């Protein structure tokens, strides 16, 4: 079902009208097969999913059917009624993008053909930044094409005039669909589309997506289970030219700074026109940017871009980038998606990409043209990352896809939507249930759960029916649910959306001896939980500078420029994405197969050979567990390669279990590749005596009571609950300027969680929290798969001393928590000891 070009039936006009064909020809272009295929599906009234790599002209392809159709209709109408288009009350085409900036960018790009062909079509954007008067005018005189975001769609369909506004809608174009569908934003969007289907029967959808692992799932998501969207694919363009940095420097055993490669990266930047330097976390971005400037003898224009920076600053960087005024930008995932940059000719990826699909996307940012190969250099920051980079490069060449799978819809999102629908018009529960289950993520939602969600929206859904008189929505005699008062709708509008930022503090730069609490330039925003781990005087990297915390007042953190060039606090926020299952399997395979080692840098090959000599290299399906003594501590190191989140969960559970067995665990540390637990008793001896056996220790039953028990106390659950409570509308968001209204109007969601846990642990919101946390923060599914994978395949090696493979994770001990400069020195010294011990 790939692109096909049918011969035009004789009684129909050509698929691409003359004006358009002329415009293409005028630019020296020929319509591409996928563009024609989309036109063909549109004419037949079918929804379509276009899967294409970056640079394939996706956006124009997505809009062509609309432009052709609107132009033809307007011409026909003009002929019919003498020069005046018919009166119309709503928009014709809706475009939805995950990013405001992308919507604005697309509006600009769409302007070109509309202007050059003189098409009688109006195009406007509607985002959170659109002024009120313009929004009002858009309702009265809607444009033909409206470009917006999922949140704005939720607002539009919850308005009283939604019926009218969408009654003329023919088509919805969804951009970067792969980036939306696996999140709660995607859930909300799917519900919005279900509503649009009802308001405008016969509606068609066009989805634009990068390559995904499961295109059939996405087709169903878009078109419906019964009528999946037609698939149009564009084969990848020129094979990207990806290499792993070849450095003369020693590759570090652990850490994420990639400092060893600094001069190499700088040389690459210098040798290219414009370089995008991707890293995985904000802290890495800060660190690398700072380090690059310390060696920037040519004062190359190198900029920094990440989500914590002040918006104005980000805008300036984006503008400079578009004008080709920058030599390099150090950035995080904020630049993963679609906006067209100037002439990027190199992508450098510092740190392992964590997923083959993500790597492909990022590499696509270079040379935004299909027929030229993108050029990318991967810079692994440590030895395990070398293996991972190698696996990702092989994966990219093989076209492997490891995008996250589609998932069932979140209940907190459903609660928000139900309230929104009541705001739009009174609803009948049966009809809304039917509509909701027509959305892919909710297709398996049972009626009892739906009713509990409605009950939650109405009165909180508590077993103790205390709030009938405060109901937000109520069922009338006519069987219809409606909002009980206008404030409910107002509240809904202020709280719409699923993006819950971690609580952020504004960072203000003040003079060294100025008083905290007044003035200072805003540098950006920082997670409250990071600042909570600092004491005044502690220095850290922010906005490319080493700053020192002076103090915190209300929602602002005050910092001054630090004297020293070395920040005392090494980092904030851990790895953002866990290692993908696909890459994990590839890394395990590579370890097990010495014939693949020659493709690795010699130092890394030597490291693996040494491991084989001193300990064991597990086969692909085995899991190695090493135990050894170091100083007065006994260590257990396991290598599941299942990503940091699953390992952290495993660490918590193992520690509890070892504690119960009297093996006195003291702490643990988890990376993407391995986990290490240390304690006061000899675990190796205990395993050899079968007290416990390793099989029992790693038995999947730890996911039962142990998990429940641990979660009861875990701050992870509280953090998840907060997001669910905000999305579901149990508590209101803090709105800018209202923070100071005091304790009376806010309530701690942690306390609410404690109350619910003790008195109604089966509450619908607790269920939503559990589902959310187990999937995202804990990666329970993956841990569970791993535990069954290794059953009967655990290899125990009791060692006299630390093994080469264990060095990296032991070096992470202490890095995970905040440590001062003195600690860093001690670490560096003991690090050398570890290596000597292992290799000597």
């Amino acid at each position: 079902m790939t692109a096909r070009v049918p011969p035009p039936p004789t009684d129909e006009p050509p698929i691409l009208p003359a004006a358009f064909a002329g415009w293409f020809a005028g630019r020296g272009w020929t319509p591409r097969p996928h563009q024609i295929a989309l036109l063909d599906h549109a004419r037949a009234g079918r929804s379509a999913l276009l899967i294409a790599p970056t640079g394939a002209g996706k956006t124009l392809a997505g809009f062509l059917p609309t432009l052709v159709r609107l132009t033809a209709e307007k011409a026909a109408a003009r002929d019919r009624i003498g020069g005046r288009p018919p009166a119309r009350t709503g928009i014709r085409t809706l475009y939805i993008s995950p990013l405001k900036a992308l919507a604005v960018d697309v509006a600009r790009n769409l302007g070109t053909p509309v202007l050059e062909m003189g098409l009688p079509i109006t195009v406007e954007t509607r985002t959170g930044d659109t002024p009120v008067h313009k929004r009002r005018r858009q309702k009265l005189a809607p444009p033909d094409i409206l470009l917006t975001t999922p949140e704005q769609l939720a607002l539009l369909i919850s308005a009283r005039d939604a019926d009218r506004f969408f009654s003329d809608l023919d088509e919805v174009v969804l951009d970067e669909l792969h980036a939306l569908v696996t999140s709660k934003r995607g859930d909300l969007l799917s519900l919005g589309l279900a509503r649009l289907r009802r308001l405008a029967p016969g509606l068609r959808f066009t989805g634009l997506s990068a390559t995904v692992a499961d295109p059939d799932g996405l087709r169903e998501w878009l078109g419906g289970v019964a009528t999946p969207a037609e698939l149009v694919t564009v084969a990848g363009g020129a094979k990207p030219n990806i290499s792993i940095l070849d450095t003369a420097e020693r590759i570090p055993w652990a850490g994420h700074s990639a400092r060893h490669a600094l001069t190499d990266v700088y040389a690459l930047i210098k040798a290219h026109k414009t370089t995008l330097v991707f890293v995985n976390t904000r802290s890495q971005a800060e660190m690398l940017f700072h380090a690059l400037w310390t060696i920037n003898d040519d004062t190359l224009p190198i900029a920094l871009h990440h989500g914590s920076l002040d918006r104005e600053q980000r805008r300036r960087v984006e503008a400079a980038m578009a004008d080709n005024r920058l030599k390099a930008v150090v950035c995080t995932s904020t630049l993963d998606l679609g906006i067209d940059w100037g002439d990027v000719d190199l992508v450098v990826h510092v740190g392992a990409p964590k997923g083959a699909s993500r790597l492909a996307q990022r590499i696509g940012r270079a040379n935004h043209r299909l027929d030229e190969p993108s050029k990318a250099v991967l810079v692994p920051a440590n030895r395990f990352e070398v293996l991972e980079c190698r696996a990702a490069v092989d994966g990219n060449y093989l076209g492997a896809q490891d995008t996250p799978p589609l998932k069932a819809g979140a209940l907190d999102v459903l609660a928000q939507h139900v309230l929104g629908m009541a705001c739009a018009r009174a609803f009948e529960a049966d009809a809304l249930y039917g509509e909701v289950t027509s959305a892919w993520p909710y297709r398996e939602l049972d009626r009892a759960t739906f009713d509990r969600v409605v009950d939650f929206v109405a009165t909180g859904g508590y077993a103790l029916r205390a709030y009938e008189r405060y109901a937000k929505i109520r069922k009338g005699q006519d069987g219809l649910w409606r909002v009980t008062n206008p404030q409910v709708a107002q509240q809904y509008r202020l709280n719409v959306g699923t993006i819950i930022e971690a609580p952020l503090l504004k960072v203000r730069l003040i003079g060294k001896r100025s008083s905290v609490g007044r003035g200072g330039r805003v540098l950006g925003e920082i997670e409250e939980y990071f600042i909570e781990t600092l004491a005044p005087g502690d220095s850290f990297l922010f906005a490319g500078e080493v700053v020192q915390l002076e103090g915190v007042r209300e929602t602002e953190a005050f910092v001054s420029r630090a004297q020293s060039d070395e920040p005392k606090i090494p980092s904030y926020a851990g790895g953002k994405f866990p290692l993908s299952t696909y890459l994990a399997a590839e890394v395990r395979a590579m370890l097990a197969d010495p014939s693949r080692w020659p493709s690795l840098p010699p130092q890394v090959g030597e490291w693996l050979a040494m491991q084989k000599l001193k300990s064991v290299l597990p086969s692909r399906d085995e899991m190695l567990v090493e135990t050894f003594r170091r100083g007065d501590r006994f260590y257990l190191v396991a290598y599941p390669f299942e990503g940091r989140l699953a390992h952290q969960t495993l660490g918590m559970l193992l520690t509890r279990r070892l504690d119960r067995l009297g093996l006195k665990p003291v702490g643990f540390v988890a990376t993407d590749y391995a986990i290490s637990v240390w304690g006061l008793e000899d675990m190796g001896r205990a395993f050899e005596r079968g007290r416990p056996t390793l099989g029992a220790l790693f038995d999947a039953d730890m996911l039962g009571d142990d998990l429940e028990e641990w979660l009861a106390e875990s701050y992870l659950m509280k953090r998840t609950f907060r997001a669910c409570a905000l999305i579901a509308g149990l508590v209101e968001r803090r709105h800018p300027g209202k923070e100071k209204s005091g304790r009376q109007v806010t309530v701690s969601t942690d306390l609410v969680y404690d109350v619910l846990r003790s008195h109604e642990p089966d509450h619908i919101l607790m269920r939503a929290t559990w589902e959310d946390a187990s999937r995202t923060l804990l990666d329970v599914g993956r841990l569970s798969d791993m535990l069954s994978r290794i059953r009967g395949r655990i290899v125990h090696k009791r060692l006299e001393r630390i093994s080469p493979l264990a060095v990296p994770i032991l070096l992470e001990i202490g890095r995970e928590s905040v440590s001062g400069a003195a600690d860093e020195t001690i670490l560096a010294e003991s690090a050398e000891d570890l290596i000597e011990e292992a290799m000597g």
Partner: protein
Amino acid sequence: MNVAAAVAGETGRAAASPAGLASARVGGVTVELHPSGAMWLSATRTLVVADLHFEKASSFARFGQLLPPYDTAITLTRLEAVVAALAPDRVVALGDSFHDRHGAERLSPADAARLAALVGGREWLWITGNHDPEIGEHVGGARAADAEIGGLVFRHEPSATFVEGEVCGHLHPALTVVGRGRGVRRRCFATDGHRLVLPAFGSLAGGLDLFDQAFARVLSRARTVAHLIGAERLYRVPLTAARGR
């Protein structure tokens, strides 16, 4: 990592009496602090609790935030437990006992009966607060804006001018201590030896960081000592040893 251990490891142990009580000096008087967040004056067998905030959830529910309607029951359970443990002759509720002035009217029949049993069983004084400037007669007990007991002054809101030996609530003190790379936040008693601020007792009552400016006019920061509420005991932390925020 066990939270209580982290707190202890970071801050050092307080001398705790067998009943879990810790003692502190306020305005020259020795008082005892209970891990429930209540203060105990053994000489007069007086129990003092601050900021119960009964019916906070239903107060929010009136305006569309339908919080779990169990907060009053939980607070009552805690109060019953400490009353049973110490058998006071007198209880002083140090203001903001109800989250709003209509709170007492919204008590469920079951909660109202439990409260009546508590109030009826001993001498009971409601100090009025900003949330509950008046408390209906039907809940029983006596009412006052402030009181003097055993050489200490009891008042909901700390006085604007310095008062030696003043015991108050209102501010909901809480403190975060940092250990092993993360912070642990707990409600706490806070005293500089001259005045004492009690933690909020109510299950849904939030906390205000001890480093907030609001405490600066009440307590001398250099001399402030916090007693953090742990699972079964209190942890004594001088403010100078805690992190600043």
